[in-house]
């Protein structure tokens, strides 16, 4: 074990934890004022609930001994055997450190989905869905990619969670937006963000926390962590510029929401590639990520689904682009443990990435639809029209965010 690595990953875990309240503000500012608390709650309560689910069973299903490449065993149920000794997945770290770092990823991923059904989901239904989702969708995905499962074995590259975190939440968000349906008045009324400064602050916190997310995924305080830190920052910077440029050309003015959205899109896009590409590669991935995700949010009104806060457009599309871009830009010059991509003479890697994209989308979309149906039957998933009209703050929590 290595104390520098241990210190670094503990701090990274804390940084990743801070992304969830950051996400809460990012989303909270974009909804109408009557739904601010409900929206903040959707992210914040994941820190509570998912952490417990993770300790009880999620960690074991993700990182327990492999069963057929599909799921982890029950070796670590109730965190049995997860202590201060070296982690099986990273022998430079105490097992508890690896577990809690991974816990923070499990917390933020279902929180990302909440942008799709903001302003209309029933709190009880949302909680049940999220708990089931972590067990049935997140844990297998995590096992497939990082826990010794088939996707990792196949050679798919996913440094910090392009498939596990972003495509999985994007695909599930699409399922949720389609199943739960549009908000009342969608396409007729205005859904104008009520507090963009909150959104900008949230985006800034996400950017900050993402250094823990991506650099920490090196699982050591080393050169690879530094490389991932730099690629993360460059991609976010390039994507903020890319989105803004696309918007300025297309809609006539550069907006703050566009700048913040672009930065997040770049962070999403670089996530799978962060430890495999050069800084110049990351700038191209970010810049194109900004353009692609801007196009993604424009698709929403054309396709006619109400993904309230563009989880599909940003996390789904951005994660997909990042996974494919990893197959283009990856180079063993950055990471000997990785592989070369198409631009470094290995077209096979792009195919592997493509397979991982299709499998992730299909699995997460279908499983989420099934879970939504189950939850709908048991406790109900959508608030009544009257509850929706007064807002989630009063109808779900008996509180209001602002007193004027």
């Amino acid at each position: 074990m290595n104390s520098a690595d241990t210190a670094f990953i503990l701090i990274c875990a804390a940084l990743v934890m801070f992304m969830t309240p950051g996400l809460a503000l990012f989303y909270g500012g974009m909804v109408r004022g009557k739904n601010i608390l409900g929206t903040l709650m959707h992210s914040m309560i994941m820190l509570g609930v998912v952490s417990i689910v993770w300790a009880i069973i999620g960690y074991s299903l993700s990182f327990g001994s492999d069963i057929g490449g599909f799921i982890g065993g029950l070796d670590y149920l109730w965190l049995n055997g997860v202590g201060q000794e070296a982690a099986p997945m990273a022998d430079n770290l105490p097992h508890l450190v690896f577990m809690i770092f991974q816990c923070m990823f499990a917390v933020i991923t279902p929180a990302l989905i909440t942008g799709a059904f903001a302003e209309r989901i029933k709190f009880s239904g949302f909680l049940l869905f999220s708990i089931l989702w972590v067990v049935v969708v997140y844990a297998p995905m995590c096992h497939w990619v990082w826990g010794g499962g088939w996707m990792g074995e196949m050679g798919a590259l996913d440094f910090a969670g392009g498939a596990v975190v972003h495509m999985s939440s994007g695909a599930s968000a699409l399922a949720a937006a389609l199943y739960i349906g549009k908000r009342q008045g969608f396409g007729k009324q205005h859904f104008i963000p009520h507090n963009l400064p909150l959104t900008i602050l949230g985006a800034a916190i996400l950017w900050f926390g993402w250094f823990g997310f991506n650099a920490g995924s090196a699982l050591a305080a080393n050169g690879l962590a530094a490389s991932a830190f730099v690629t993360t920052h460059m991609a976010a910077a390039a994507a903020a510029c890319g989105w803004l440029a696309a918007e300025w050309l297309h809609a006539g003015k550069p907006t703050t929401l566009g700048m913040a959205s672009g930065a997040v899109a770049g962070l999403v896009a670089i996530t799978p590639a962060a430890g495999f590409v050069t800084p110049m590669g990351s700038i191209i991935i970010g810049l194109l990520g900004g353009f692609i995700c801007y196009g993604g949010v424009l698709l929403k009104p054309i396709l006619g689904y109400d993904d309230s806060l563009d989880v599909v457009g940003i996390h789904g599309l951005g994660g997909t682009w990042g996974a494919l871009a990893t197959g283009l830009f990856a180079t063993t010059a950055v990471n000997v443990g990785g592989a070369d991509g198409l631009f470094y003479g290995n077209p096979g890697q792009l195919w592997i990435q493509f397979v991982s994209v299709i499998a992730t989308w299909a699995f997460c979309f279908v499983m989420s639809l099934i879970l939504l149906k189950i939850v709908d039957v048991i406790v109900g998933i959508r608030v009544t029209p009257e509850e929706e009209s007064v807002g989630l703050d009063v109808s779900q929590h008996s509180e209001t965010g602002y007193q004027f």
Partner: protein
Amino acid sequence: MKKIEVVTRPYKLDEIKEALTELGIKGMTVVEVKGFGRQRGHKEVYRGAEYQVDFTPKIKIELVVDSDMVPHVVKTIQDNARTGEVGDGKIFISPIEDVVRIRTGETGHDAV
């Protein structure tokens, strides 16, 4: 006596108030209002989605003056509120039956 109501641009309020004070007007009431005329509102864009916001913030000034003052007051307001662009607003003039000063009970001309 006439009541004069002016709906115009908020940033013109100080100029209008000062010019009217110089003219000898002793009081007025100001409200913040929203509305639209030929100017309509403005466009807002969020992640590429355009929203037309119809109601533009305006101020409404209300004052009651003796009938012979009306032409001067209207001219002063027009001179100070006018930019020449759409959205300068409108002046409405209507008759007033009587005015009572609450403190003294004075009525009519004395109370204005």
